[in-house]
């Protein structure tokens, strides 16, 4: 393919790095560092979690489930915030990269939320004696999972992904109302669930437990950044391939 005249020169720096083609170029250099970083963080975090942290005086060894439960619960919300911010980008600036980010985040969010619920159930059984309790936070997380799945289903039912992005952005933003409900629901119907652990109360746990938790949260967040970047690259390539497919079909038909 011959190089055309570069139309990007007139753009400002943000437009330049956010242009899908340019994003494809520079984000390549993000993948490896992020991958290495997350491997290191997971290694250190898991070592802390199993070999260098005490058992909790109340929960015993089951406190170790927290090191994977809390990061996933945190990501289940962070991914939705990512989607909501992208949705604003889609609707207000009509930015193609925002569409891509919003689409890439949904399956990741569904996976992290599933893991949060799964580990939560396994943590709840030994500590409270039940896998599932219809308390505010757990219910809200379940609703969040249903919303992710609904959004994924909606993406798949549209043929025209550009139009789909704008419409889905609306439902994502309407759903954002749900995030505060998740946060505050714990005050509403709190039954068995513990109050928010990383909260304004400050460090309500000893540093020996807080350190592995923080490292694991960083590890999972880095993993999300890695997977999100790669999924965005995948989506840009998919659109590129679709465009080429259409072009070649048009050529064949004359």
């Amino acid at each position, binding site marked *: 393919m011959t190089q055309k005249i570069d139309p990007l020169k007139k753009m400002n720096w943000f437009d330049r790095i956010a242009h899908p083609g340019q994003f494809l170029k520079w984000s390549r250099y993000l993948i490896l560092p992020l991958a290495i970083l997350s491997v290191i963080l997971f290694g250190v975090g898991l070592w802390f979690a199993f070999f260098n942290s005490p058992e909790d005086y109340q929960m015993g060894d089951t406190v170790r489930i927290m090191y994977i439960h809390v990061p996933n619960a945190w990501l289940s919300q962070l991914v939705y915030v990512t989607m909501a911010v992208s949705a604003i980008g889609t*609707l207000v600036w009509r930015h193609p990269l925002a569409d891509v980010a919003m689409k890439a985040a949904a399956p990741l969010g569904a996976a992290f939320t599933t893991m949060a619920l799964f580990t939560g159930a396994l943590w709840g059984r030994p500590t409270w004696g039940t896998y599932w309790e219809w308390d505010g936070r757990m*219910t809200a997380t379940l*609703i*969040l999972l*249903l*919303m992710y799945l*609904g*959004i994924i*289903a*909606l993406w798949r*039912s*549209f043929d025209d992904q550009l*139009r789909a992005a*704008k*419409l*889905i952005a*609306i*439902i994502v*933003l*309407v*759903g954002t*109302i*749900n995030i505060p*409900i998740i946060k505050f629901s714990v005050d509403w*119907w709190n039954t068995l669930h513990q109050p928010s652990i990383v909260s304004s109360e400050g460090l309500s746990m000893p540093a020996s437990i807080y350190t592995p938790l923080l490292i694991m949260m960083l590890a999972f967040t880095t993993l999300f950044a890695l997977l999100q970047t790669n999924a965005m690259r995948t989506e840009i390539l998919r659109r590129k391939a679709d465009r080429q497919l259409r072009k070649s079909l048009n050529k064949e038909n004359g």
Partner: protein
Amino acid sequence: MKAFLSIIRRDIKLATSSFGDMLTLVLFFIMIGVIVPIAIGPDKNLLASIAPGVIWIAAFLSSLLALDKMFRQDFDDGSLLAMRHASISFEAIVFAKLIAHWLTSILPLIIATPMLALMLNMNTQILIYTIISLLVGTPALISFGAVGAAITVSLRRGGLIAPVLILPLSLPILIFGVSAIKLGTGAGTQSAALLILGAISLITVAFTPFASALALKLTQE
């Protein structure tokens, strides 16, 4: 204002002309009240205790069933596109359609509620609370529904996906709607739930016409 009222009048006229649809919806609503006792047994005390929940579920499902006809027909025959050139804003038109939809699809259900109450062994006081709770809560329900219907209006298979999107958003309505009926859940809980339900209703009714109108505009681009 005249244009606004004429849209409502038009939609009501259209809905009442297909009276069969309205009747079907009410029948569906009542049938849930018939199948629940058959499914769980005719124990009167049990039925009375779950009645508020059952009525809200029935209202939920019926309103989801009616969702698809809120914009679909007008979108398909192009009258929605024509309405964008009306003298009032498109958001106001969507709001008018919302009101008309509530009057033709939800109000008949609320009128049929005493039938359900009879079958589910509710006493008069609870029935009154139920009707108040439905009157306060259902506007929020169809407001969220309008967003779902507007987003999926261009999809041929949109009938099923809109409810799936809307249900999680509407759960707070269900929670507070049912709590607004139940007695003996502690002093003040019931009236607090009704107030919160009212707040949710007001906010969503004020908010969602903009979201729905935006979705319809984007679909027609």
